[in-house]
Every structure is written in structure tokens, then in C-alpha cells.
């Protein structure tokens, strides 16, 4: 049995009078792909934000690799090995694709701050090669010197994934990696997330698309109105009456 990487214990978060998260408990074990599903407004993004330091929960604990993450600034959480991939691509639109990948690679090497104004970028061959390799992996190498702002939306999503991956995170948090994608692109992304290094990585995926969830997830947690109402294997979740009631019904209405 592999060990627990991320443990969320009794996390509460309220906005004004609204309980976004109530007593959320969740354990992510090493090597698994864990999907968090739930209707809109269930608190999925809030939970993610509590993990990466964007929000601080009112109480409860978030422990990652044995370290308490609460109150830690986002950049340190990143270095602890928990990396988030954003739903809407948060790339560097004014920089070239290769630079977009070199930045996270540099973060991995240089830490949260390093002052090296006289080092030449031209001499950063190792970093550049790594970035180039990663671009090739995602089929983006042909655009490497284009501005990231100018490439297609799908390419931006792939770039976003590549940026997360190049940091070799211990845990990758994916926020709806296929939202708004055409079916064809979605399938490609699923393949990408399943294969190679990506496949072996511990991942938390927030996803709407049940097709994606059931293709990828080892375990699934269902979040509704701030509560985790069920956690289990895809089969268990499929058959859980509470889930059907709270989520799947609504899901069908959506479509």
C-alpha cells in the first residue's frame, strides 16, 4: 500500500455567510489519479485554491508530504512539489513558447528567488534543451519562438500542461484540463495524461466531463454543497445512490 501524499483534514471555508467548504476530508495516495467531481458551485475550485495557497481555510489542515501547507505562500507550495495547472490557460502571453517553458524550469532550478543578472540566457543550454524536449513531447516545438499569446486555445492548454509537467511535481493539480475542448482534443488530452511520465504522476483532477473522469481516475471524490459526500473507485461512485441524487441527475440535466 502506497503512502498518503496529500491529506486534507476538516477544512472549512466560508465567504460571508456562505459555506463553500464544510469539514472536507480527503486523502490522496501516491501514484493515484484522483478526480474530484461535483455540480457547479460545489466548492471544487475553492478546495483547490486552499491547497495551493491562494486561499487560507478558516480551519482544518492541509498536509502535503508531511508538511503543513496552511499559510504557506503559493511559491513555496510550488517548491514543495504541488503544482497547479489552470483551467483558463495562465501562460505568459508576451513571451515565446520556449520562454514559457523555461520559466518553470528555471523555478525548479533557481528556487523562489535568485539574483543572477549577469548570467547569460544563451548559456542556459541545459534548461533550453529540457524546455525544447518538453515542447516536442506536446507537439509544440514547431512554434517555439512564437508568442504564447498568438497560438490556438488548444495549444495553450497543452502548453499549460507542459508548464506544469516540466517542474516534475510530486502532485499535479489539474483544474478541468479538457473544459471547452472538442471531443477529439479531449481524447488526445486523456491519452497524454495517461501515458508516459504523466501517467505515473500523482494527480488530482477536477473535472465536469464524466467521460474524462471515468477514463482517468483511479479514485473519485464527490463534492456537493461544500461536503464530500462520497469517495471511492469509479465503480463504487457510479452505484452510490447519494451521488446519483446529488450530482449525476443534475449532470444529465446539464447535457
Amino acid at each position, binding site marked *: 500500500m502506497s503512502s498518503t501524499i496529500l491529506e486534507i483534514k476538516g477544512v472549512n471555508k466560508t465567504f460571508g455567510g456562505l459555506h463553500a467548504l464544510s469539514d472536507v476530508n480527503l486523502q490522496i495516495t501516491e501514484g493515484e489519479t484522483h478526480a474530484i467531481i461535483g455540480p457547479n458551485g460545489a466548492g471544487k475550485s475553492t478546495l483547490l485554491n486552499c491547497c495551493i495557497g491562494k486561499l487560507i481555510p478558516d480551519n482544518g489542515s492541509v498536509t502535503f508530504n508531511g508538511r503543513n501547507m496552511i499559510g504557506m505562500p503559493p511559491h513555496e507550495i*510550488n517548491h514543495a512539489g504541488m503544482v497547479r495547472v489552470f483551467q483558463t490557460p495562465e501562460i505568459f502571453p*508576451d513571451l515565446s513558447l520556449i*520562454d514559457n517553458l*523555461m520559466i518553470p524550469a528555471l523555478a525548479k532550478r533557481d528556487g523562489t528567488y535568485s*539574483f543572477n543578472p549577469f*548570467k*547569460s*540566457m544563451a548559456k542556459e543550454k541545459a534548461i533550453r534543451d529540457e524546455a525544447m524536449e518538453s515542447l516536442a513531447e506536446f507537439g509544440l516545438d514547431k512554434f517555439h519562438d512564437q508568442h504564447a499569446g498568438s497560438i490556438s486555445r488548444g495549444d495553450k492548454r497543452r502548453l499549460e500542461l507542459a508548464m506544469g509537467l516540466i517542474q516534475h511535481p510530486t502532485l499535479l493539480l489539474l483544474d478541468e484540463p479538457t473544459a471547452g475542448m472538442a471531443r477529439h482534443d479531449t481524447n488526445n488530452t486523456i491519452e497524454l495524461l495517461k501515458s508516459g511520465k504523466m501517467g505515473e504522476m500523482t494527480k488530482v483532477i477536477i473535472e465536469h466531463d464524466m467521460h474524462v473522469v471515468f477514463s482517468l481516475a483511479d479514485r473519485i471524490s464527490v463534492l456537493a454543497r461544500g461536503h464530500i459526500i462520497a469517495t471511492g473507485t469509479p465503480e463504487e461512485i457510479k452505484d452510490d445512490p447519494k451521488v446519483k441524487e446529488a450530482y449525476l441527475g443534475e449532470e444529465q440535466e446539464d447535457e
Partner: protein
Amino acid sequence: MKNLFKSNAVIMLVFSAVVLSAPIWADPIGANYPDLLQKFAIFGLFAVGYNILFGLTGYLSFGHAAFLGVGSYAAVWSLKLLTMNVFLGIILATIISGLFALVIGFISLRRSGIYFSILTLAFAQMSYSLAYSVLTPITNGETGLQIAADDPRFLDRLFGITQEGVAIPSTHFFGFDIKSMDGYFGFYFAAVVLIIGFYIALKIFRSPFGLKLKAIKSNQTRMTYTGFNTRPYLLSAFVISGMYAGLAGSIMVAIDPLAGAERMQWTASGEVVLMTILGGVGTLIGPMLGAAIIKYAENIFSALNNTELTQMFNFAPETIQNALVFIVEPFVGKGWHLSLGAMFMLVVIFLPGGVMEGVERILRLFGIGKKKKVVEGDAK
């Protein structure tokens, strides 16, 4: 071929050649006299440094004139208290303005966007107001801080260095009188500092540090989630650019030992912002071009009068000559501010990337230059 033009050595060679030959190419445009050439170099340096903050990180500071002022005052005090050798003054001024920038930057950088701008503006205006009035014992207020014959100059005295036969000693750089060569030594001195400053800026632009600053400008939130603590990066850029400003201020003093409070006024801060945008934000050469254009307008346009205009348009038949003089006259002499204002508007409306964009467009027209806009300084 392309790579050749992008190598640091070639850029520096071309840049140095252009800067040092300024007395030759500035002659036909009537700018070949020491003071203006010095101003080109000094404000070029100021703008190059400012661009490290504004061009790379996108943080719009309205308070950089304060650092220039602090650098000037520090340099004059070094001349008064220590030695007439400007070397020490320049070093001290750069350090002190850096410290000053550290304090102001530390506070101001707790905010971003327009709030950051207003914070820096507030600090600079406070510095100016105080320097003009309450701090007169340190700054000599309205008159400005000058050196005097009876200043202590402890270091000079310690080593028994005196300048014979003059009431007020002149500044020198290890024995080379800054005023020698009819003032051209002062220009070459400033030019060499500019070249060094430009080289450092070039290195910064092309370093991982510079790339990270550009990334902050592009998407600061993402930088934090990518594992960077952005505030120390911003503070470093702020302090570096503050030190450039202080350095520029001290060069001003080295050439002309006087420091006045109005150097710190918000309009002076605004001027360097305008220089940078006018020339082209984030480009290496642009800010210097902007500085040269504004200083040229200030010094040359403001001096043109009817007589000179008439001479200038001598080539044309008389009616056209009169018409030309009539059209141009409101824009020069006492109306030189008008041409400055109009120029700002025209550049921003038609060339959002500043003069550098214009240059690039022209180059593209001739089929030279790059097809696609790539952020300057990406050495490949």
C-alpha cells in the same frame, strides 16, 4: 548574419561607436556642444535604468526623479566633505540612492498597478517638498547645493591635494579635469559610463533574471504559482533602476557640481516615463532615443526664433518661406512645449511601440529586420 547582430560583442561595438561619435553626427542637427551631448548621455543612462523597472516588469514608477535627486545631493556632499575626485562621489551616490530606493521600493511594492504609481509619486513629491523647504540645511533649498571654496574636503586635505590659484576647485577623475577639452571630456566621461550602464542593462535583459522580470510583466499571478517569490524580483529591479537614477544624478554633478530640488519634482519623474514610452518601452535602445529626442526639443526647439527660422527656410521662395515660418513658429521658441505635447500624442496614436516601432516598420519596409515582433534581448 542575424546571429552576428545579436551577439553582445557586436551590439556593444556598434553602440559604443555610435555614442562616442556623437560629436560628429550631432553636428549637422545643431546638437554638437558639450552640455547637450552630456545631457543625452546622462538622461540616456537614466532612461536605460528606468526601463529595467518599467520596461521589464511593467511597474510604472512616478518617483524615479527622487533617486536622481538623492544621487545628486549625495555626490555634491561627497565633493564638499571628502574629495573633488568624482569617482568616490559616484560610488557613494549610487549606493545611497540604492538604499533610498530599497526603502521606498519595499513599501511601494506592496501594491501594484496604478496604486504603485501613486505611492511612488507620493514619495517623490514628499522628497521634493521637503528638499525645497525644510531640508534646506542639507539641500540648500531653492538655490541648490553648490560646492564652495571653504568646504572641508577631508580626504583631499588628508592627502594634501589642493588646486592652486582657483577659488572653487574643479571636479576631476583621478587627476583628469572633467572640464578639460572644452567640456568634451565631460561628455566622453558620461558616454563611457553610459556604455557601461548599457552593457549591464543588456546583460540583465538577456539573463534568466531578466527573463523572469519579463514573465512578471506578462503574468505576475502565474509567476507565483510557478514557484517564484515575485516581490524580491521586483524590489531588485526597483533598486537597480534607482541606482541607475542615482548614478545619472551623480554624473550630472561630476560634470556640473550643483544639485537642485526641482530635479526631484514629479514632472521630472514624468519626464523619464515619457522618454521611455516615447522611445519604446522594453526595448534596449528606445528609452535612450526618447531621452535624446526630449532633451533635443528642450534645448534646441526652445531656442529657435523668427530670425533663425527665416534663415532655415531660406531655400524656399519667399511666400513659401513666410508660410513655413508662420506654421512652424508656434511650435518653437516659447512654444516648444507645444511641439513636445503634440509629439507625445502623435507617437502614442500612430506608433504605440514608440519611436522604435517606427524604426522597425521602416526597416521592415526595406525588407531588413524581423518579420515577427519578438521581445528584444532574446538571445538565440
